[in-house]
Structure formats: structure tokens, C-alpha cells
């Protein structure tokens, strides 16, 4: 049996069927004790002040109180309980792509399992939706023990043959989720940026927080092909016989332009957009994002 760090190698991930086990290994074995949930900093409420004692973090000192009283007081927060996180997994045809054995969909499923485990471990509720052009399956939110198993079952889907329609899905969810919550979208985002923008705006209007993991294959990020290639377009695109080397610069330019417009949309709507390369190890992706959230929350 492989040792834990090896599970985090994308090549090993590709062969990993037991997502619940994987999630446990990753979160407990690798992230355990070092991070809190991704919504820490958003899903917390102010509780009280207490006087500073050695060992407290300086960043938590309330300088306004100090201004008034010239004494050091620490702000104390309390995590809000019974918060709901909605994991939305894109299972459209484009998510099937893999330059080796690990498809974008599988990588996204692993991420979803890890995030679900992490959230459940903090006694919060997790709901899971799988979609392409429309919502394919949905698991109602729960925070009970054993919910992870159902989540994993829910995630056990194959990529469909349909196009993705993220704007439509976000619109549907914005209305469907009653209580304020956090929506984590795992997708390659191969959709019209304006559609995506519309969905995000709708979500934000409904008071939800959105975190988007843009999962792309390493080859999609770098387009490193040499020689002549025939590209068979997924999601109803035509075939194309080209010499990729000649087109690499233009391709990357188009990708960067797309991502820039996405980033603008996300910035406008205070939404986290995290680009993910399937060649990156899973823990690194999660660790770096959680570290960023913590820093953000601590400000």
C-alpha cells in the first residue's frame, strides 16, 4: 500500500477509487492541525474582547480600543455553527480531458472529497451537486456522521457528453439555496465569461460566498505539443489538424485573455478564483489556498 505522501502525487490520485479514504488521508494526515475550514474568516462572528496575554498573536489586537484606553485588548471570534457549504462539480464532456491518466474530472472529484471531509470535520453541513448543461444529481446538505460516504457516492459519476452551462447552474442554485452559504465550484469554466459572470452576480446578490477552483490539465495550461497533431474537439467542436508549435503563443494568449476576463468578473464580485493545474499535488493546491484564506481572514 502506498504511503500517504504518495497519495498526493497526481499519478497516484488517478488510480484512487476510495475518495473517502483519500480525503481522510489528505486532511488528517497532511493538513490536519495546520488549517481550518476554507470559510474561516467569513463564517465567524465577533464574541468579546479580552486583555492581551503573552502568546497571543499581535495581529488580533484591537487598535481602536487601544486608542481609547491605551490598553491591549484582543478581539475574540466564534465560529458560526450550522453553516452550509455547497460543492458544485462540473461533469461536462470537457472535464474528461487528460494528457495522461488523470482527468480533470477525477482531480476535481478528489478535491471535492477532501473539502467535504474538511468541512464535515468542523461540524458544518455539506451539499453536493453534479452538473453539466443542467444539474445531474444533488445531495441535500447534512453534517451528520456518515454523510461523507454519501457524498463520495454522489461524486462517483462519469463525464457526460454534454456541454457545460455554468451561468445557468449558478442561477439555479442561487434560487435553490435558501440560507446564506458558501458555494465551491470545481470546473474548467469552459463557458462564455459573460454567462459565468451573470451566475456569480446572481449568487452574490443572494448573499452567498463563491469560491471557484478552475481545474485545467497541465497541457491545457502550457500547450506543449510538438509535431503534427489532430485535435478531436470535445463538446461538439470540430476536428483540427495543426502544427501546435506555430499556434502556441496565440493559444496561450487567448487562454490568458479568457482568464483575465474571468478574474475581473471575480474581483468585481469578491469571489476567489483559484487556477489549478492537474500536475500540481492536491495538498499543495489546498494548503496554499487555505493559507491564503487564513491570511485574508486574519487581516
Amino acid at each position, binding site marked *: 500500500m502506498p504511503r500517504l505522501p504518495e497519495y498526493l502525487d497526481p499519478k497516484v490520485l488517478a488510480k484512487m477509487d476510495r475518495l473517502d479514504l483519500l480525503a481522510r488521508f489528505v486532511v488528517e494526515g497532511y493538513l490536519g492541525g495546520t488549517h481550518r475550514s476554507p470559510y474561516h474568516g467569513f463564517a465567524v462572528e465577533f464574541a468579546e474582547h479580552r486583555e492581551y496575554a503573552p502568546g497571543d498573536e499581535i495581529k488580533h489586537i484591537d487598535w481602536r480600543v487601544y486608542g481609547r484606553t491605551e490598553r491591549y485588548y484582543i478581539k475574540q471570534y466564534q465560529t458560526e455553527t450550522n453553516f452550509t457549504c455547497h460543492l458544485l462539480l462540473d461533469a461536462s*464532456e470537457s472535464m474528461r480531458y487528460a*494528457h495522461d491518466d488523470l482527468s480533470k474530472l477525477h482531480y476535481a472529484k478528489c478535491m471535492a472529497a477532501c473539502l467535504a471531509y474538511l468541512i464535515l470535520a468542523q461540524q458544518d453541513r455539506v451539499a453536493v451537486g453534479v452538473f453539466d448543461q443542467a444539474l445531474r444529481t444533488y445531495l441535500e446538505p447534512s453534517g451528520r456522521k456518515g454523510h461523507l460516504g454519501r457524498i463520495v457516492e454522489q461524486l462517483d459519476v462519469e463525464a457526460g457528453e454534454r456541454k457545460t452551462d455554468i451561468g445557468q447552474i449558478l442561477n439555479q442554485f442561487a434560487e435553490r439555496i435558501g440560507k446564506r452559504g458558501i458555494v465551491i465550484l470545481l470546473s*474548467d469554466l469552459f463557458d462564455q465569461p459573460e454567462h459565468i459572470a451573470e451566475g456569480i452576480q446572481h449568487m452574490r446578490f443572494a448573499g452567498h460566498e463563491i469560491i471557484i477552483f478552475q481545474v485545467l490539465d497541465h497541457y491545457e495550461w502550457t500547450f506543449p505539443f510538438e509535431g503534427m497533431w489532430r485535435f*478531436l474537439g470535445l*463538446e461538439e*467542436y470540430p476536428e483540427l489538424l*495543426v502544427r501546435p508549435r506555430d499556434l*502556441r503563443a496565440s*493559444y496561450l494568449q487567448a487562454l490568458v485573455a479568457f482568464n483575465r476576463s474571468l478574474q475581473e468578473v471575480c474581483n468585481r464580485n469578491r469571489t476567489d478564483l483559484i487556477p489549478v493545474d492537474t500536475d500540481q499535488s492536491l495538498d499543495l493546491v489546498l494548503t496554499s489556498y487555505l493559507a491564503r484564506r487564513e491570511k485574508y481572514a486574519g487581516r
Partner: protein
Amino acid sequence: MPISFLKMAVLGGAALAALPIIIHILSRRRFRVTAWAAMEFLLEAVRQNARRLMIQDILLMLLRVLIIVLLALALARPVLTGAVLGVFGGTAEVGALIILDDSYSMRYRTPAGSLFERAKSRARDVIRSLPPGSTAAVVTANEEATVQAQPTFDLALASDLIGELQPSWRGSNLAASLAAAPPLLERMAKPRREVFIITDAQRRAFPTEQAALTELLGPMTSVAVPYLLRIAPGLTENVSIDRVELLSELPTTAEPVEFSATITNRGPVPQRQVAVELFVDGAKVDTTEVDLGGFAEAERSQGAVLRAGLQRPGLHRVEVRLLGDRLEADDRRCLALRAYDRLPVLVVDGESGDRLFDGEVDYLAFALSPVDPETGEVVSAVQTRVIRPFQLPQENLSAYGAVILANVPALPAPVVAALEEYVGRGGGLMLFLGDQVDADAYNRDLYRDGEGLLPGQLGEPFGSGDPAAGDAVGFSASGLTHPILDLFADPDSVGLTTLQVWRAFSLTVPEGASGRVLWRYTNGQVAMAQRTFGRGRVLLMTTTADAEWTNLPHKSAFLPLAHRSVYYLIRSGQEAWSLAPGEPIVLTVEVADLERVVEVRSYESYDRPGGQVDEVKPELTDQGPRLLYPRTTKAGFYQLRRRGDAEPLALYAVNVDTAESDLTGYGAVELEELFAGFPLRVLSEENALAEEVRRSRRGRELWRWFLAAVVGLALLETFLGRVFAPKE
């Protein structure tokens, strides 16, 4: 602007221009396939770049095609000819092949020097006229073509080499030289190739049939411009010695030896009282005169008889000489002669007897070497040595003037080979038959379907073998013109009618083969036949040498018959010592000679010994120990002597072929007519060569321009390739 190509075959390389297109097509066929999700970005990239990429591809491919086409054109050596001005103008570099007639007729002396000196001067004019960068090759033409200078850029060297050339002693045959021209021209890849044939234009040197001329000139004129430079001898006066022969049956020291010389007037002017001199070993011994005064053909050729007393046995240099005319090469003729006081003849006795005249060869040996009954001394120069057949393999046959086999059974293969070698080199062989002879074995080993020694195929013997049976036949008296038999032409003088044969082998001599019937029996069967084998002769008597099958040995006719036969055979050996210029000496020597050095001294003529001495070591060849000497290029004597020996080993006479002595040549007009159908210019010595030829030497090679274009395009292709390359 006519453009031609020096290496036309290379033009085919232009087909390689299809290579970039083929590679492009193939590369589009060899691709890998993948499903692809981020198609939107790829399509966008294609939309932005398709047109630019297509134009770049086409541009690069065109450049590559052009590079290959221009490279093929450059390698094919394009030449711009004709009067073209501007940067392409100029004088073409020339590949000049000079064919210099060096046959001995070119030795003809004229007031302006010998024809050959004039021809050399003309050849150097040709070299001087060549533009810088030209190449020249020199071939001398006699009966064979000899490349004296391979194609060279060093024109001064070629000119010096021409200056050192000497005329040969051989006849002329320009056909051989013209045939050698195309390969040399092929090696001189120049915009213009020229062939200069410098000759006295003797009629005999050219084929006269148009087909033969076409065959000779065709390959040459397709790649080169030929010129014929005629060196005219003017009025040709020439008297030649065509033959010198030994008249005496056997040259001995006992009595004067007679020679006949045939003298011919080759010129148009009658020659009277032409002095003819005989020299033996460098000393004048006899003089006579011939009158070649008439204009009739029969009076233009006369015989002269000269005599010499030979003081010692052995080899003698006999030379007949005329007082020199303008062509000295044919004014002397050499004869290598061995004078005998003893003539060794090997007689092989196939059936020896116990008592005198019982043996097979007793009569023969006695007839050849008769003993004076009063003094008990042998009175003939012929010295016979009688051996048995089994002793044959140990004998050095070349020590004998003739070999006689009498009633010898089948011979082992090495002996047959030795006999063939001996006769082939000029030895004489005589065979008598008898009851020991196995006709089948003789036919198999000695006749060999006409390839062997026998003049005909042996059949069954005829006649009872019993003189008393009444079936004896006589010898025919008709057609006896052969030198051996002409004395029997008068039947009464030697008692021809008394000769009887009661048994003999039948012999079939095929028509048209080299065998010849000399004498027949009265029943029409062959009595004596002869064949020439190599340089030697073979005589075959179909009956016995003893009295078993014939009464010939008992008759007085037997003595002259035996002697004349031997002399006839000997003479064939002496004729073998006469060679044509360039014909190599091949002499059979003893095994012991392999360790010894043989000196070959050449005597160009009696009064100009030449003094050249070469040293040669005999070699062991497949045929046995041989002395090989190929440098017999000059006419004259070649004496071979083992170093340290007093007596020479052999003597050879090398004489010119006097067919070359007929100096009748084509005139300028006749040559124009002869070559009317060919692009060959005939130039006489009066023509200013340089002006004649230079006018037609306009032209320039273009390969440098093409190569420069190739380099330029290659650089452009590299540059564009870099510019078009995707930026990382």
C-alpha cells in the same frame, strides 16, 4: 542566349526539387491524435494565424524547391555560348585533346624539319592558344593510342612533354586514337572541348567508308569540336626495303650464305642505280645496285641478291641498307640469323631395334648426319641426338633446331604442352607415324579438333603392310611446288616413281584450317601435310621413318627429303626472331637461368648501336621459366646475353611494317570531301591557328552564379525560418 550543360546527366537531379513538397505532404500525413477540451482557444489561435502560416509555408517551400533546382543546375555546369555581351561575355575555358600522329612516316625529313617536329610545333601552337583555365591532354597515335599527358591544367608541362616526344617505329591507325578520345574528353569538363588531330594525313590512316567514319567521329563530335591539322610532306620521295630473306637452305660457316632483299620505290619519281648494301655484325660485306627506273608498277619493286661468308657459328646481325633518303626508317631491314657448323636435331625413337637399321630412326639419323666412309667423320652440319620417348620430359627442347618424333606412342600431357610451347615459339616439329601410333590418342592430344599441333585428323591406316601383297601405292608427282618437294618435280632426277608405300595412316586435313596438304600418294591419300602453329611449323608424314611401311628410306630421295624438311623447320625458327615494333620478346630459358641476369642490348642500326643495355631477370610463369622483354619499341636488333657469358643467348630483329612507307596522303580538298558530313574543320599549316580557333571560343560557365544564388537563397531560407519560427 544558347545555354548548354557540361554534365547533362546531373540535370536529372532537379527532380529532387519535388522533395520539399513530398516531405511537406508526408509530414501532414504523419500526425498524432488527441481529444481536446480547450478547443475554443485553439480555434482562436488558428483564426489569427492560418493565413500567415500558409504564406510562410509556401514561401519556405518555394525557397527550398528553388535551392534544389539551382543546385542541380549548378552541378550540371551550365555554359552560356555564342556572342553574348555584358557580364556573361568572355572567352570559354577549353578542354583540348591533341592527337599527335607519331607513326614512322612522320619521320620524313623536309627542309623545314621532320614532319614530326613540325607537328610538335603545331601542337605547341595549340597549347599556346588555349585561354587561361583550360586543360590539355596529349595522345600519340600509331597503331595504338598512347596517352602521353592526362588532362592537365599545367599547360607548360603539356607543352614541354610534347617537346620531348619522339616518333615511333610503327604504322598509323588514327581509328584507334579516335576511339580513345571520348573517355578523355569526358574528363575535361569545360564549356568548350576541342580535338586537334595533327597528322600527315596518309590515306592508309583513315577509313574511307562513311559508316566507319561515322562510328569513329560520331561520339567525339557530339561532345567536342574537332580540327584536323594537316602536316603536308610535299613531294614524297621514298624507297623502302620491304623484305630480306635467307636464300640458302641452311646458313653454315662452310659456304657463303645468300640473302634476297626486295626494294620498292614508293615515290612518284623513278630511282636509278639505288645502292643496296649488306652488313653482317656491323661490317659491310656486299654491295649491289637495283634500278627502280620505270613507272610501271612491276618495275617499281626489284629484288637484290647479296652474299656473305659467315666466319663463325652462332648468332649474326644481318642488315640490308639503302643509302638514306628522306625517310630513313624503311631504308634498312634487319635479320637475326644463326649460322651453324652443327645443327642440333632431337630425334625421338618410338621403336628402337637391336640391330643397325632395325630401329625406327636409324635411317633418318644416318640420312641427317651421314658419315664419310673414308674419314669416319660426320659430313653434315646436322647433329642428331636420338632419345627414347620416356626421356622427352627431361629435354630442353629450345636447345634444338628441330624435333622429330618417329612412331612415338601416346604422349603425356606435360610433353604435349612442352611441344606446343616449343613450336609456338618458333620451333620445328616433324612426325613420322607407324604401328606404335594410337590414332585416337594423337587426335585427342595432338589434333584437338584443329587447335593442336597436327595439321589434320588421323583415320584408319590403309594398305596391307606387306610389300608383296601388291597393294602398294606410289607418291604423286603433281603440285610439287613446296620448297621441300620442288626437287621431286622432275620425277626422274630422284627416282620418284620407284618409291612405294604399303601402309600409311589416312589423314583428313579440313579445308580452310591452318593445315595444308603438301604431298599425296597416288591413291589420293595424304602423304605429307604441314601446319603453322604459333611461330613454328609442324610437318607430318603419314607413313614410317623406317622401311617397315615404305621403301622410302632405301631410296636416294630420302636424304634430300630429310634434310630439306629439317631446314624448312629451322627457317621457321629463324623467322620467329623477327618482331614488329612493340611486340614483346618471350624467350624460353632453363630453370637455372632464373637466378641469372640477362642483358638486353639494343642496336638501333649497325652504325648507331644505341648503347642501351637493359637488365632483365627471367621469371617463372605458368608455362615455365621465361624471359619477358617488352621494350622493343625501336626498329633494330635486340641481343640477349646472360651476364658473364661470351655467347649471346638470343638475337631478335625488329623491323617496321613498310605498308607505312607509302606516303601518299590526302590533299586539303580531298580531306574536306572525306569529312563533308562531319563538323570537322581541316586546317593546313598556313592557317593562322589562333585566329581560326579563337573566334569560336566565346562562352562562359555559369555554375558560380548558380552556386552563389543557392548560397544566397539558403541564407534567406535560414533567416526566414528563424523569423517565422514561433516565439517561445
